[in-house]
């Protein structure tokens, strides 16, 4: 008897329905298409949160399923943002420059327009030339291809070098941190061609859509982000459901044994690393137009560590856990750091959540790791009554067969 993919994976269907319901609810409560209950900036926050959920999915695939604790996936997220940001900024500046030059006695030549764009964009870092990396910036199609291509190639080359040398565990984590730090430091330089620490700004204004208000745009981006998250979830669920999922979970548990089964572990790791880098890049390309600005600080090592914290708190090794963790922690974080959480006056000391939120997050992370390794997602197991039998003690090993310590003693 053949069953469909969704019938075999009911959690995917439930997730997609929840996501659709959420998107519909936000739309009906928005300023542009509904009863104006949610402010445009909050709709943007929700849209950005959906993008963070998507990158958390990628993190869960690489860490929770394949066992590679990559602490560099925000580099791919940021690169995706830079790639789309280049087109947004270039095309928008082009419009402004063409408008400004239109008043002159002669129609502007293409060279004049390019020089105008160069001065507008790069004046801030003391340049007027459009650098070579902006070669494709005039074309949306090309930059959309680059959103996938640049982070994908970086992941492919980095992963190939790292996995081929069989770097594993904490050493690989450190290497990925080094990668994202190096990239951030490079982008901080003014002559990297991406405006140094100013980053790219004004990304919330879509070229050619001046008459569309930000109220409507925020909902459009929410829809796009929800669609991307839904498709990403389907893709990840499909990847982990079959034999490929079996093999990568086996790599997580005992990679040497997988090699002796005849699977080339390095190729699998490389495939998963590159795939998740591309998912992260797409999430970034949807995130930064909603944030409006991207700068190299977004690629700082701490960002990727937060990503790991979200997935750990949400529950790794299950896709909905990653989404729940990212949504829960990042929304809570913006509540605490947004100054809306009431301060606690202890008499001798006032706890300001803006400062203390990180401490709280750190403690929560430690507690979850120690006490509830399955994270928030583990609550669903409790609800379903799915629990591991409490065997009390370690496996006794050979000769005493399946009995475990306490059982054997009786």
């Amino acid at each position, binding site marked *: 008897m053949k069953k469909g993919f969704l019938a075999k994976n009911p959690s995917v269907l439930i997730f997609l329905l929840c996501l659709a319901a959420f998107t519909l609810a936000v739309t009906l409560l928005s300023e542009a298409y509904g009863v104006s209950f949610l402010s445009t900036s909050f709709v943007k926050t929700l849209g950005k949160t959906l993008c963070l959920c998507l990158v958390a999915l990628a993190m869960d695939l690489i860490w929770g399923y394949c066992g590679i604790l990559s602490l560099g996936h925000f580099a791919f997220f940021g690169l995706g943002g830079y790639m789309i940001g280049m087109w947004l900024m270039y095309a928008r500046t082009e419009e402004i420059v063409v408008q400004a030059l239109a008043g002159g006695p002669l129609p502007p030549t293409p060279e004049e327009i390019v020089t105008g764009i160069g001065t507008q964009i790069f004046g801030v870092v003391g340049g007027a030339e459009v650098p070579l990396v902006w070669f494709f910036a005039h074309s949306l199609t090309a930059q959309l291809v680059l959103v996938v291509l640049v982070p994908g190639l970086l992941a492919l080359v980095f992963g190939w070098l790292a996995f081929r040398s069989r770097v594993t565990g904490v050493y690989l984590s450190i290497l990925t941190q080094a990668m994202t730090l190096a990239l951030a430091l490079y982008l901080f330089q003014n002559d990297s061609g991406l405006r140094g620490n100013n980053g790219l700004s004004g990304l919330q204004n879509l070229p050619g859509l001046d008459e569309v208000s930000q109220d409507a745009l925020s909902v459009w981006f929410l829809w796009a982000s929800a669609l991307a998250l839904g498709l990403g979830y389907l893709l990840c669920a499909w990847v982990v459901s079959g*034999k490929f999922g079996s093999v990568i*979970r086996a790599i997580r*548990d005992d990679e040497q044994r997988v090699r002796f089964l005849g699977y080339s572990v390095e190729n699998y790791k490389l495939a998963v690393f590159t795939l998740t880098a591309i998912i992260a890049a797409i999430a970034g390309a949807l995130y930064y137009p909603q944030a409006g600005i991207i700068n190299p600080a977004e690629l700082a090592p701490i960002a990727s560590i937060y990503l790991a914290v979200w997935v750990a708190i949400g529950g790794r090794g299950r896709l909905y856990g990653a989404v729940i963790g990212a949504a829960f922690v990042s929304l809570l974080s913006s509540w605490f750091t947004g100054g809306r959480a009431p301060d606690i006056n202890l008499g001798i000391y006032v706890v300001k959540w803006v400062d203390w939120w990180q401490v709280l997050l750190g403690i929560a992370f430690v507690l979850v790791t120690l006490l509830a390794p399955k994270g928030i997602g583990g609550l669903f197991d409790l609800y379903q009554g799915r629990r591991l039998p409490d065997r009390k003690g370690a496996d006794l090993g050979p000769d005493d067969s*399946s009995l475990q310590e306490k059982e054997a003693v009786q």
Partner: protein
Amino acid sequence: MSALLEVSGVSVTFDGFRAINNLSFNIGPQELRAIIGPNGAGKTTFMDIVTGKTRPDKGSVTFGERSVSLLSLSEAKIAQAGVGRKFQRPTVFEDQSVFDNLMMALKKPRGPLAVLLFRPKAEDASKVEALAAEVGLGDQLARKSGELSHGQKQWLEIGMLLAQEPRLLLVDEPAAGMTLQEREQTTALLVEMAKTRAVVVVEHDMEFVRRLNCKVTVLHEGSVLAEGSLEHVTKNPSVIEVYLGRG
């Protein structure tokens, strides 16, 4: 009869300790062989070399009719070429079902793309069911393999090896932790398997080796001390001195 596996003049040194010293060994395509020797004789290192986990300092290892050198191949490629390995401790993927474990081991294309697009057909499922029945796990397919008993895990791993359809099987102390009845089953299975492929059994237990009733290779300090029937090698004075003499 030409040899399936030919190991000649192999040496390995770990930090100055010579684990394998000018070892030569060969086995035919349908042969059962037991390797015995005291601790530190190099039995496990020998298996590591054949399966590609350890690279020898010198010597050659060739496999199959075309005498492919295994020294330049990765572990995965060696396994694909037809070398299967059974560890002493049962290593199955405890988080996954018996069915998934066997399906992963089933001989199929091993590349990431082929595996990603792979969906089991009815014949694959029935193959897995037949294998599970063969190793006595026919009614345990849906269980997580971590819940199985120690003996059942051993059998599952043997089932996974059979699924790989190897031409050469390296088995490390198969009888460890088994009951008497399980040992008898295992003996019968190994003898049966050796009818269609080469099987190398590394074993401590002399009683078990006697039951296998096959040619025996005695290792000592990284090289072959004696080779022949169990009767023959147990009469060899140097074997008695280094191995049997110690009890």
